[in-house]
């Protein structure tokens, strides 16, 4: 954010929440991106992600009890895939923040947070279904929208659709 620009109140709240997380986890999290539309930070140390998630949910000053959304994203130029989690403290402190977690594009895996927020359970299954990253320690790691025997991960930018599925021509 440039000097002199007015920072809105909601971004200030997110920044305050980020400061607490940074204080606790130090190098495991990246710098804070204080943009107006979706302020976020990135988790750099993958293995710390469940611990950070639990801390964010249970710390009395953070109380991110509500996961609004978890989206898979393909970072093709960085050779990575990742997730973006939109978290919120619903009814408690009313602040919001987004967290990004990235892993290797082929054969990568991210620790699951389904045990922290139940919402993550199906959303992580969807991210796996569409992008192919695995979520370690997920209770039920299966595809959710595509059939179990579908080939490839449809939302990857370089996805090529299979020629036929059980004798049915797929590309039209």
């Amino acid at each position, binding site marked *: 954010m440039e000097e002199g620009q007015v920072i809105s109140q909601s971004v200030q709240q997110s920044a305050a929440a980020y400061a607490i997380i940074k204080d606790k986890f130090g190098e495991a999290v990246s710098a804070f991106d204080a*943009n107006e*539309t*979706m302020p*976020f930070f990135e988790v750099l140390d993958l293995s710390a992600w469940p611990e950070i998630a639990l801390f964010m949910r249970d710390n009395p000053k953070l109380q991110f*009890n*509500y*996961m*609004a*959304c978890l*989206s*898979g*994203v*393909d970072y093709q130029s960085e050779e990575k895939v990742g997730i*973006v989690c*939109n978290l919120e403290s*619903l*009814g408690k402190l*009313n602040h919001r923040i*987004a967290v990004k977690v990235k892993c290797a594009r082929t054969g990568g895996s991210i620790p699951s947070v389904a045990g922290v*927020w*139940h*919402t993550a*359970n*199906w*959303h992580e299954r969807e991210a796996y279904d*569409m992008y192919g990253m695995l979520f370690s320690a997920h209770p039920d790691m299966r*595809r*959710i*929208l*595509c*059939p179990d025997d579908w080939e490839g991960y*449809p*939302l990857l930018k370089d996805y090529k659709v299979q020629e036929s599925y059980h004798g049915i021509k797929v590309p039209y």
Partner: protein
Amino acid sequence: MQELDIAGMGSTRVTRKGNNLVVLEKDLQTEQMVLAMGPQHPSTHGVLKLECLTDGEVVTHAEPYLGYLHRCFEKCCENVDYPAIVPYTDRLDYLAGMNSEFAYAITVEKLLDIEIPRRVEFIRVIVAELNRIASHLVAIGTYGIDLGAFTPFLFCFRDREIILSLLEWASGARMLYNYIWVGGLAYDVPADFNKRVMEFVTYFRPKTVELYKLLTENEIFVKRTRGIGIMPADVAINYGWSGPMLRGSGVKWDLRRNDPYSVYPELDFEVPVPDGKVSDIGDCLSRHLVRALEMEESLKIIEQCIDKMPSAEGFNARSAVPKRVRPKAGEVYGRAENPRGELGFYIQSDGKSTKPLRCKARSSCFVNLSAMKDLSKGQLIPDLVAIIGSIDIVLGEVDR
């Protein structure tokens, strides 16, 4: 009693009614049976498949299977321009197309920095609230059918038809509107639209009372829903529930109030939550009750909007619609209160292209439905139908 397995794995089978355990059968050895409900089953409201593991009448485990209506919404979005996504959003929650368009439009506008004319905002709120009533009418009507009450369904659909005609008059389509555009509207409303909407409001207000007496206070209906499928507030939040589902659990949370958008801050309306007098908080009846009371509030909002709306003089519904929608680089998560809960869009723009890099729809039904596994444990099969009905799913939005 505490030693009993609620899921009924032993020889004594019990079920949960309110806070009490009720013993159904004792000393009975039954086999576990797999019962597939759906994907072609009327009570699952579309193509949802529930694979239930049952022990006699008691469901010990229910596993939802989705994807029968998956139409690659997110893949389509990456291949079309921003304005061309609007018709696709109609097809997410096809019972509340206006609300879906509204959510998408405000999300993209967050990235665009454009000023929306005031009249546009009011028209948007009016059509969205009309659509909310129509959607709740379907939810309430079909919920009655699920539990064996056929008459309310006919009453609901009769009144819903009036709303659909109004929306058709404004947009040209009955359900898939493409009316709320990024930056404006497709057209201004017809000349006498406000008058006809007011006529509908006056006509419909007594009907909500009638519907309340007919269904919500109906003895059989109450017996089938009260104390069934109780969801505590903290678990509901952890599951990411939103909308009438969350309010049914007693959490006063409405995005129109708590994360206000458009002109909602100027409007005066209540957020109904059950008080525990006629229902047990968090049960199926509470969720139904919230929907029934919400229609009344929508009527209030519509009335106020018509009062406050600026006149049509010199108004162009497309004056702020950009010729070419090319948002600045960045990410945004925008959301709106839909009849079924929070519909959110996560959009990523690279700043160069007229197509989004990523557009994810956070579907309210998808998230609400994910609690099905926990809600169904230890319930009777007929109660399972009551629970699915109370979640009010639209498979178009679940599967996207």
